[in-house]
């Protein structure tokens, strides 16, 4: 391990300052080209009391250390265009995820954005885009000292992106943001599955937030050291009814797209002042499954949910999932550093006893040139009972790496 870390530190030292993006303009059409590269070293600390981290899940065999690895998280290219006063478009691709054949499309889809916006009295955005629901999900990942979002918001529980149409409006000098949209309901999986669910229904999403004393961007870290306290509160809801669930490899909780009705609710609070910042975000998911099986047995895999006792195996018509995350951070300009700690709690099914997952995450970033060039580290400390076979994540993990943005 020590040799690997030394090798990686030498790689980090080779990181040079970030560069600005490139803009082309003809007086009417403006095109901005930017991108992100990030890479990391991941080290797991294997817990001895659980056989799930052994080769072939056999306690007699040694640890499966496949997660001790170098990884390429991002290799993104973004094209943002503005035409005249009223039209914008946005295309963002992550080649690192495209090359990995989309094995985990919820968290890391190869396509991040492909949409166009008409900026009239109400902004209308059509295409593949981020769903305005969770504030943490809306906050760009490249502005974070963490390597992974919380379990709730990283795309395992609800889709973070989808194809659809979004109406948005800002009021009161951008202090109030309002969003309402209709999406396919398939989330990122639409990209690989193609067609919508046989029900042909949409997912409907709404969000509203208000900030004080001025507009508050979806950023979690006060690197500019705001001279006055700033606050934001928000809430969102989304609902979708599907005929079949659809699961893809990489699903941990089988909650992304379920058969029946799934409604999600969230509320959040964010504040910052003089480098200190705090966020709290709560989620409640109400799932009313029908457990309809796809006759072909190919595209929809409802049985996966019942095997793991996560969906609809009790004598009730619905179950609940949810949890919360809370983050406390400090950004120091003199030290060019962000220190952060985040507590995550997530229960994927309230009908299953003792399956609440908890973790404490420590994040640190050294900003060589702001967020454009930074070295960052995250340590995930699992707090839940690690010998509980219902828990998905029980090994602690350290991830160290660098991010270079051409933004």
């Amino acid at each position: 391990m020590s040799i690997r870390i030394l090798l990686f530190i030498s790689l980090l030292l080779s990181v040079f300052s970030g560069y600005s993006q490139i803009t082309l303009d003809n007086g009417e059409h403006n095109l901005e080209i930017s991108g992100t590269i990030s890479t990391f070293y991941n080290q797991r600390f294997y817990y001895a009391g659980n056989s799930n981290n052994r080769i072939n899940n056999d306690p007699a065999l040694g640890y499966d250390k496949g997660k001790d690895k170098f990884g390429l998280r991002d290799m993104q290219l973004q094209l943002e265009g503005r035409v005249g006063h009223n039209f914008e478009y946005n295309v963002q691709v992550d080649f690192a995820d495209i090359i990995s054949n989309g094995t985990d499309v919820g968290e890391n889809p190869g396509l991040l954005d492909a949409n166009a916006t008409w900026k009239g009295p109400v902004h209308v955005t059509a295409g593949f885009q981020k769903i305005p629901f969770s504030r943490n999900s809306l906050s760009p990942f490249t502005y974070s000292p963490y390597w992974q979002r919380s379990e709730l918001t990283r795309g395992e529980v609800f889709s973070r992106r989808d194809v659809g149409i979004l109406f948005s409006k800002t009021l009161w000098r951008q202090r109030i943001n309002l969003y309402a949209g209709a999406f396919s309901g398939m989330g990122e999986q639409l990209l690989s599955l193609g067609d919508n669910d046989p029900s042909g229904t949409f997912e409907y999403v709404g969000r509203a937030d208000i900030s004080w004393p001025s507009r508050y961007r979806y950023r979690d870290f006060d690197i500019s050291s705001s001279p006055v306290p700033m606050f934001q509160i928000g809430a969102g809801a989304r609902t979708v009814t599907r005929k079949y669930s659809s699961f893809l490899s990489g699903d941990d909780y089988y909650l992304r797209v379920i058969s029946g009705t799934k409604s999600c609710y969230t509320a959040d609070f964010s504040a910052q002042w003089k480098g200190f910042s705090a966020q709290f975000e709560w989620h409640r998911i109400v799932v009313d499954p029908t457990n309809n099986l796809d006759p072909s047995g190919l595209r929809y895999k409802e049985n996966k949910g019942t095997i793991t006792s996560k969906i609809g195996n009790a004598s009730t018509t619905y179950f609940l999932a949810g949890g919360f995350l809370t983050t406390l951070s400090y950004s120091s300009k003199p030290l060019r550093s962000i220190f952060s700690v985040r507590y995550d709690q997530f229960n994927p099914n309230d009908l299953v006893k003792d399956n609440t997952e908890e973790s404490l995450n420590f994040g640190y970033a050294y900003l060589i040139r702001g967020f454009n060039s930074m070295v960052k580290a995250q340590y995930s400390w699992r707090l839940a009972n690690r010998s509980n076979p219902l828990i998905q994540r029980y090994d602690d993990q350290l991830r160290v790496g660098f991010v270079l943005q051409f933004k």
Partner: protein
Amino acid sequence: MKKIRNFSLILIAFLSFQGIEKGSLKADKKRKLQIPEPSDICLKTDKTGYFVVSDDGFLFETDSVGKVVRKSSFRGFDFEGVFQDSSGLWVMDERTRYLYRFNTETLLPVSTVEIPYSGGRNKGFEAICRNPKNGRMIVITEKDPIWIMELDAQQRIINRIRFNGLSDVSAATVWNGNLYFLSDEDHCIARISPIDYSIEKKVSIKVLNPEGISPACNKGLVVSSDDQAKLYFFENELTLP
């Protein structure tokens, strides 16, 4: 447990110390501005009011307390810099990199030149004024990186200097013969050497998202806040000169 507690207390004390901004200056007066997202302000040459530009590409004329007197019918894209002297009224469009000279009677552009720069759309020219020492007009990019470009009388770039002293530059002005830069991310006003563009002195200000700076009609400086859409007048305590 005791070690953890002691470590936590030391950490909190350290972070608290880091968080204290010393000498942050409060404005003597504030005025609401009926202009959305004001991005720069300059004193009119007759000192009776101001010209203000906004993010959505409009030029406004105001009285001495920021009340809008006139609005230009011309719309650019993202006006971020405005400055007036005997050579004219100049407006910088960050998105297109166009430098406009406006007719002060009609508030319409009479000439347009492009200052070439291929950096980020939102990291282009944010500041414009005249170097009080060499008399050249200067335009300054916001950040990543910050370039100070000196222009000749035909608005051609004749010198460019890399500037590293601030996180960003959101506006520039000349006051009492001295050159000043305003920084949005550092929340400060810096007095700049007109010879080598080094920072001579800096003072923090308690203004959220400061984007414009100008000498005030009466005395002191006025700073405009983009997010707050307010003018902040610093009349008495500012000791930078």
